[in-house]
């Protein structure tokens, strides 16, 4: 192909500029800042590993890290299994299936904030869910005002929204499961439940690993759901704050402790990168099988 030597760089210029200025540079700067006592007003001197020592002694950090980990552990299993069941139901082309699939996808289309506000209203102390609980003879449940229940409620919202999203991924994978496997199993007299476990699940293992990885990364990064359900407070006494919420509340505003927030960001990055590497390794092992 013939072109002037600088032509490719003209093509690349906008993309390279955006990625280096607003991704790569902030990333490198974050790592430098993590070893300083920089404030929101600028400045900051090199303080070595002080920020990390402080972190190790900071109960807010441990609580936030624990919440993020709990969140991840809580959402991954339901997000791997439930959307798969939905996809198996929605896979067969029956009359009206398009309407069902579109409807299942609506929570993904609606933005996170809308979903958060809708569930805040549903789970309100006098909201629809509690009305039903009361009608059934139970006591009102403090879904949003108890720090443990707030975490669980947020997980429910994440899983609810993930149903449609991961369903699409599973639908695409299900389309690739060879039909003759199912037919052979049917000839052998296997019922639908048996076929699900011995044909569908094994053929979908790589996709399930992918969904587990995606939902784990997104689970550890959780911010919006808890922020919205708690009205921006992170729960009673901030007890449901997650790592991303802690970074946001530490680093922002005129009193922001940029150095410490950067050190927290380094921890977040290392965990997420670790998750990613584990996934890649698992994927490679799946490929070899």
């Amino acid at each position: 192909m013939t072109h002037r030597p600088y032509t490719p760089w003209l093509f690349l210029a906008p993309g390279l500029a955006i990625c280096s200025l607003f991704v790569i540079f902030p990333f490198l700067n974050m790592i430098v800042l993590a070893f300083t006592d920089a404030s929101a007003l600028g400045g900051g001197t090199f303080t070595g590993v002080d920020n990390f020592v402080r972190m190790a002694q900071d109960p807010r950090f441990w609580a936030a890290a624990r919440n993020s980990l709990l969140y991840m552990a809580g959402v991954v299993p339901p997000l791997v299994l439930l959307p798969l069941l939905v996809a198996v139901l929605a896979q067969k082309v029956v009359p009206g299936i398009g309407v069902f699939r579109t409807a299942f996808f609506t929570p993904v289309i609606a933005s996170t904030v809308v979903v958060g506000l809708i569930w805040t209203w549903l789970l309100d102390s006098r909201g629809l869910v509690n009305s039903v609980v009361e009608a059934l003879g139970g006591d009102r449940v403090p879904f949003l005002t108890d720090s443990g229940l707030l975490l669980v409620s947020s997980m429910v919202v994440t899983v609810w929204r993930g149903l449609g999203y991961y369903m699409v991924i599973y639908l695409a994978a299900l389309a690739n499961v060879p039909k003759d496997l199912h037919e052979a199993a049917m000839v052998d007299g296997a019922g639908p439940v048996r076929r699900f476990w011995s044909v569908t699940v094994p053929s979908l293992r790589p996709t399930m690993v992918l969904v587990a990885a995606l939902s784990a990364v997104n689970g550890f990064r959780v911010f919006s759901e808890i922020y919205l359900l708690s009205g921006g407070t992170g729960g009673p006494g901030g007890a449901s704050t997650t790592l991303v919420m802690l970074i946001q509340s530490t680093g922002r505003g005129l009193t922001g402790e940029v150095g410490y927030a950067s050190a927290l960001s380094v921890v977040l990055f290392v965990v997420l990168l670790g998750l990613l590497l584990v996934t890649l390794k698992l994927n490679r092992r799946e490929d070899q099988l």
Partner: protein
Amino acid sequence: MKRSHVLLGLRYLGLLAILAISVGPFLWQFATSIKGPGEDVFVPDFIPDDPTFANYAAVADVVPVWSFALNSLGVASVNVVTNCLGAAMAGYALARLRFRGRRFAAVVFASSILVPFEAIMISLFLVMRGFGLTNTLTAVVLPGAVAALNVLLLRNAFLALPAEVEEAAVIDGANAWQRFTRLALPSVKGTLVVVALFSFMFSWDDFLWPLIVLSDQEKYTLTIGLAYLQGTFVQNQRLVAAGTIIAVVPLVLLFLLLQKHFFRGVGEGAIKG
């Protein structure tokens, strides 16, 4: 035969149950939004006695919800254009042009994908302040204006095109830009639609970054505007509900319009990956 009827019935039963779970909360929100001031919103009643759209007008009186929506629409539209164009240009160079430094460029994009936004947001805020852009919609758009993931998506799409057509165009004297706009771009329409849709949805959905970088109410995008609305008017759920419905409707319409491309595009990506 009978057994398969039972199975089909069970399938529809399951589908209907999931339908109720997915759409029910939206219906409840809509029902709340059309309840009049005289009606108790806490009573679990999906059909209001006296439905009214007054709340939609009222919500615009207390917060400029339409100007929030306009800000979001502007940001999302710009995001679509810059992503489609910028990512296609970069993807084309990576896939179709030979030059020194191509590997370097590819590494920049690949490593950008690995950096989670949440880890750099504080540092990114400092960059924006350095440019004097905090509290502007420009700052909301810039970091995602050309997403590295889209560059790689389009690079793969261009790689999949046969090389012969372009070779012929080279012989006919077409330069790189002409080959890009007249031959390559029209052939990757499917991927472009997916990139456009995802860019729009991502931008319309974005909450954390506008929350950090915007401070004046008049600059608010719809997402932080809604969170603000809830924080301020928590005692009037009718207004909050009307606000959320305003935020949902455009996206659902857009999705219904482009649905075919969407499910097909998602399927393609998954198979290729």
